[in-house]
């Protein structure tokens, strides 16, 4: 059921990434934005989507309903219903004094109002609130209407954009509401999600309805779970299923999990189109098993936990080493170059990457590769150096161009070719001492892609 090549759908994480989306939109197959981003900056997002659609990329709006459901706290490992992860510390004034209160982020508060009952920005939605068919139908309609009309409404309400309201882009598909299938209440949340996808598919919309299966990675090992998801795809009437297994990291996953994931894709593809909501190269390679396409962020996001772990500092954008299909530190790669016989820019372009960014950066000497990791003190008080914005930008563009090339090359390779390439890379790059521990996914992927 797949197309002539895998679809590459880029997820916009913030408006800081707008430049990448605009410059490369014509090479992507689609763009997906989270509804929370839309609500944070509705005017800017609406005009961006208009520009992107003009470049013939499909649009999707992720309704982010899961954010209003229960979640497992990554620190305590306990089930929480207080929605704290979509709150932030906010400065307020009370009796003339500045105080800090923990409150919902403005974007989620607005989204909760848009999506309506049973979502409330106060406590997590519980499955029993969606048992009533009428409540569920109203909710599914609200969520679909939001995706279909929110962009147009923004245009209509904006003086400068109102003339374009008739041209407001429409999503290529509408997502049914979805909630995280957490492992302590698997059956309950699976039933709820299946009911939501079935109800949404029955709304009779003019655009296809897709489902997002958002579940803990542990469920991949459960054959009954996989069977149920396949059955739901077959009987619910949805036109597509997007898989998101929280905690399933392609590079770290064991062979059994990788195989289970591949089997699920293969089984689903017999009945519907299948996408990876946060996928990397392994997911893309599953195009040969029926994966229609993958979605991921611009600088990261090939895998994503339902509740993100908040870091203390801005993460370094690492260099995507195409042969190894993962991002690695600049010194780790640089240390391996001579062992790989890469001593000149020509060698680099032949054996590492010849994208426009790499050709421009590594032009005179192999030492110029270091520009992907350039560091600076971001402000006078900084104690530690951080990657320069220019270096991060180089890494992001290189990554996106590499991913576009991987997509374009995928139909020209058989799954046996891919397996052989992965196994061969394990014996070349994987033998370099600075990369050995970062290449152990290669034989696992090779074996799992049977």
């Amino acid at each position, binding site marked *: 059921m797949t197309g002539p090549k895998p679809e590459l759908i880029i997820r916009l994480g913030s408006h800081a990434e707008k430049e990448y989306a605009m410059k490369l939109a014509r090479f992507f197959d689609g763009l997906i934005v989270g509804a929370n981003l839309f609500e944070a900056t509705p005017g800017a997002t609406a005009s961006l989507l208009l520009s992107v659609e003009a470049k013939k990329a499909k649009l999707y709006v992720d309704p982010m309903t899961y954010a209003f459901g229960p979640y497992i706290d990554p620190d305590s490992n306990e089930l929480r219903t207080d929605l704290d992860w979509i709150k932030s510390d906010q400065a307020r004034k009370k009796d003339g004094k500045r105080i800090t209160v923990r409150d919902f982020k403005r974007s989620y508060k607005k989204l909760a109002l848009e999506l309506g009952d049973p979502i409330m920005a106060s406590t997590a939605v519980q499955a029993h609130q969606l048992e009533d068919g009428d409540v569920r139908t109203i909710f599914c309609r609200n969520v679909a209407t939001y995706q279909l009309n929110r962009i147009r409404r923004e245009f209509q309400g904006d003086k400068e954009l109102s003339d374009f309201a008739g041209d407001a882009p429409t999503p290529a598909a509408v997502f049914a509401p979805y909630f995280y299938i957490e492992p302590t209440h698997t059956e309950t949340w699976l039933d709820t999600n299946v009911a939501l996808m079935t109800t949404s598919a029955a709304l009779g919309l003019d655009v296809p309805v897709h489902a997002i299966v958002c579940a803990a990675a542990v469920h991949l090992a459960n054959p009954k779970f996989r069977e149920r998801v396949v059955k739901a795809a077959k009987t619910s009437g949805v036109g597509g299923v997007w898989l998101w297994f929280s905690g399933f990291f392609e590079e770290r996953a064991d062979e059994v999990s990788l195989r289970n994931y591949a089997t699920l894709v293969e089984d689903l593809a017999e009945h519907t189109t299948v996408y990876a909501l946060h996928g990397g190269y392994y997911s893309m390679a599953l195009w040969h098993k029926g994966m229609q396409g993958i979605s991921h962020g611009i600088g990261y996001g090939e895998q994503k936990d339902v509740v993100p772990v908040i870091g203390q500092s801005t993460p370094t954008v690492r260099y995507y080493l195409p042969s190894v299909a993962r991002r690695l530190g600049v*010194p780790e790669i*640089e*240390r391996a*170059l001579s062992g790989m016989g890469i001593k000149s820019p020509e060698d680099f372009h032949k054996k590492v990457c010849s994208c426009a960014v790499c050709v421009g950066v590594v032009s005179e000497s192999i*030492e110029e590769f270091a520009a992907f990791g350039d560091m600076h003190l971001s402000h006078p008080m900084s104690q530690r150096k951080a990657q320069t914005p220019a270096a991060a930008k180089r890494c992001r563009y290189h990554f996106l161009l590499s991913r576009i090339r991987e997509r374009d090359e995928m139909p020209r390779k058989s799954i046996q070719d891919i397996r052989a390439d992965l196994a061969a890379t394990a014996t070349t790059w994987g033998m370099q001492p600075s990369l050995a521990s970062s290449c152990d996914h290669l034989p696992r992927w090779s074996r799992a892609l049977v």
Partner: protein
Amino acid sequence: MEFSRESDMTALVARFLRNRSYAQQLSEVGFYEHRMDIYGYSRAHQLTVAVELKLAKWSRAVSQALLYQLCSDLVYIAMPTLAARRVDVALLQEYGLGLIAVDKARCRELVLPRFSHVLRRRYRAEYLALLGEETQR
């Protein structure tokens, strides 16, 4: 355990290096996302040296030391004497890394480092500049 923290070894190893003419030294100096425990320079030999201190996990020390070969002529890992005995010496020799065993009384060089064959002049020059030295190699 002879030392409870890696930093307990810093002064001893720094003195060991000074005795070998590496008088100019920096400690806890960043190299990308890593921190080199000691980076030194010998005007007499016109050589730089980087040291990774570790209490126990020698394979991690090796991983980091391999990267420091990009910015230093010579690279050591330094460990308490008992832990140093467990290090795979053949592996260090294969990679050209040196090994210093540290105890409260003295430091001993168990494995001689070789000159780095992956040295990047640009990085070396940056650290020499931090040490107030002009680039001479």
